[in-house]
């Protein structure tokens, strides 16, 4: 770490507020700059006996918390113990290293989106939406697609130049791919809410492979969304864009015309 970074962690008295305002290296903050305090809770599959609190402390220390205070330990039956730990985390974050998924496109008003589609495609843009696999959580995809929309913004159905085919829930990947071919879809929008055992990742990879295979001359845009997706994983999952918690329809529409206009290869 540079000495400049170090001094940011230990500001000189007097100018602390100024220096601390935008340092590059930061620690967790309990009640004092640089104190590194965090709260952690977890269960260990061990009985709550003399060893338990020591085990919890060691666990926390292995996560880089030192000193670690085991402030709560509770037996849950004979084989498990729940712990709450407070302590100082050794992590120093270099903010310059944090990958930022900045929005790579401007947010456009509805009329401009309609105009752009018309001028580029000279026809309506066809979008197919679905929850694939066994996922039946449609509220998220409906929020994006239905006229009613989300957070005060109308959904994609509201856009004159967008044709929305919403297949609903629990759609099988082959059915979705077939429909995309039949409709000659420009974009496939898929929602995945259930994440247990990484179902969302598995399903997305499966869909991406199937779609690519079904469209040898270039597949439609593939956009996935859901509250627990990491937007930085597009390459890993083989999709064009990932939207997470709190997405609004306007963002999705703006992204689509941006991609259409060549923002995506």
């Amino acid at each position, binding site marked *: 770490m540079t000495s400049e970074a170090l001094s940011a962690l230990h500001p000189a008295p007097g100018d602390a507020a100024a220096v601390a305002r935008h340092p590059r290296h930061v620690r967790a903050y309990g009640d004092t700059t640089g104190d590194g305090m965090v709260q952690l809770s977890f*269960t260990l599959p061990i009985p709550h006996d003399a060893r338990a609190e020591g085990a919890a402390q060691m666990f926390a220390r292995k996560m880089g918390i030192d000193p670690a205070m085991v402030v709560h330990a509770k037996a849950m039956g004979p084989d498990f113990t729940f712990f709450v730990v407070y302590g100082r985390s050794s992590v120093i974050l270099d903010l310059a290293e944090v990958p930022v998924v900045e929005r790579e496109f401007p947010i456009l008003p509805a009329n401009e989106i309609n105009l752009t589609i018309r001028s580029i495609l000279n026809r309506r843009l066809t979008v197919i939406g679905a929850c694939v696999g066994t996922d*039946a959580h449609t509220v998220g995809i409906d929020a994006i697609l239905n006229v009613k929309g989300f957070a005060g913004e109308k959904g994609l159905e509201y856009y004159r130049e967008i044709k929305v085919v919403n297949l*609903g*829930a629990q759609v099988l990947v082959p059915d979705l791919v077939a429909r995309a071919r039949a409709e000659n879809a420009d974009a496939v929008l898929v929602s995945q809410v259930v994440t247990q*055992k990484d179902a969302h990742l598995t399903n997305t990879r499966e869909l991406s492979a199937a779609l690519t295979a079904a469209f040898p001359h270039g597949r439609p845009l593939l956009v996935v969304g859901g509250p627990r997706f990491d937007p930085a994983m597009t390459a890993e999952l083989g999709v064009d864009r990932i939207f997470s918690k709190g997405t609004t329809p306007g963002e999705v529409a703006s992204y689509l015309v941006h991609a259409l206009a060549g923002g995506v290869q």
Partner: protein
Amino acid sequence: MTAAEGKLGLDPEVVRTARRLAERAAQPVIELARTHSTVSVERAVVRLAGITGADAEGIPWVNRLVDSVRDQVGLEYGVALPVWAALATGDYPGLTALAREAAAGGVTFRLPTGHAAERARRASLRAVAGGVARVDANRRQREEMIAGLGDPPKPWIYLIVATGDIYEDMPQAQAAAREGADIVAVIRSTGQSLLDYVPEGATREGYAGTYATQENFRLMRTALDEVSAELGRYVRLTNYASGLCMPEIATLAGMERLDMMLNDSMYGIIFRDINPQRTFIDQRFSRQVHARAGIVINTGEDNYLTTADAVDAAHTVIVSQLLNEHFGHEAGLADWQLGLGHAFEINPSLPDQFRLELAHAQLVRELFPDAPLKYMPPTKHMDGDVFFGYLLDAFFNLVGTITGQGIILVGMMTEGIVTPFLSDRDLALKNVRYVRDACGSLAEDFHPPRDGVIATRARQVLSESIDLLGRICDDGLLDAIAAGTFGITKRPATGGKGLDGVVAQAAGYYNPATEILEGRAHDEVQDELS
């Protein structure tokens, strides 16, 4: 009237009107269910007669058998006559052997007539009576165990396990019981309700839930019997009937001594896109089985408030409860078996949110004084702030306590994040216990004034319910569903999955299970049943 009642000043005449309208709205659908059958109803009949097992692909023999019958003679007359006519040939040692042979294409089914028909009728009736006898025996055993071990006081604490692996579920369920759960529910894997068959055997993989199978039912009931004995309190087991196999799962539940079942007349339609007609027919049969088994059903009105707004749609919950009540009564369920559902889902940032929740919960309590209401915790507004989520669950528990709800589904702070951790349940139960013990009879101090926020809101919801019921009577329930009345989800009467499994009963349709469940065959099968 219990102590919890009569705080809102509801007009009994208005309440009677609401019930009358619900009955009228339900009538055409009941008629539909009376005059139709489904593949799953027919499979349930054969299951009651004792068929088990599945082929190498995991498709149960009962499916193979009913499919063969259907292909060859149709199901308009029911599966019983052709099947027992085939068995009467003496070529097959039993139902499973018959099914195996049928799947291999080696059986020719015929609709028997005359004497053969009468023999098939009698044989099927006796065979099915064996299954019903098992259901009856389970019911008696439950009653004895409860009498011996003791029944926990209301509200019953309802906890979910959902690891996907029955062998992880069992110790978790026992742990939950030790921590205070009165009822353990095993959530199903996400895809199961759209399967048109019931998987077989003990299962260890499932997404966000564990498959409902007869063997899983048995394993879990055994685990809970063990812990019930240890704790000196009967711990109830719950699973889910709703889905394409409602009649069969209800049957298996009766045969494995489950105690409660999620069973809603419309959930499958709205939240699983199952065909409405299929659902209403399946629902009626499944409830007849539950009625016989002494199982308490749980309805699913809480779900409406996850897709619709809890204030705007409050009256749809009441309407659905009144419909569920009538459908339930018609199928033979007693009031104590009607675990009508509702939920604490009003946006917590709304002014007076807590008092509006009190109004809704108290209204349901006063409308259905003898039903063991099932009250569901906040889910929609659980947004990842686990601390606040834990608090919100406490206020849910408090509403439950003040308004005397019968079954409290315990809220989890990680709702909105993951399926519950072991520690979530432990913390959640601590939450429930605090509220229950510390606020015990707070209802004693709760007296909403007649013209106050709470009583006014309750009367308003009731009056909106009556308006909606009136419209449903005019348009028909199926059209109301198609128009998106419940959960703002539109489900046309001919859409959705499973319509092809529906069949209109022909004159001469025969269903030995219905005969027994509707009390028409009592004399004939006295021996089998006692």
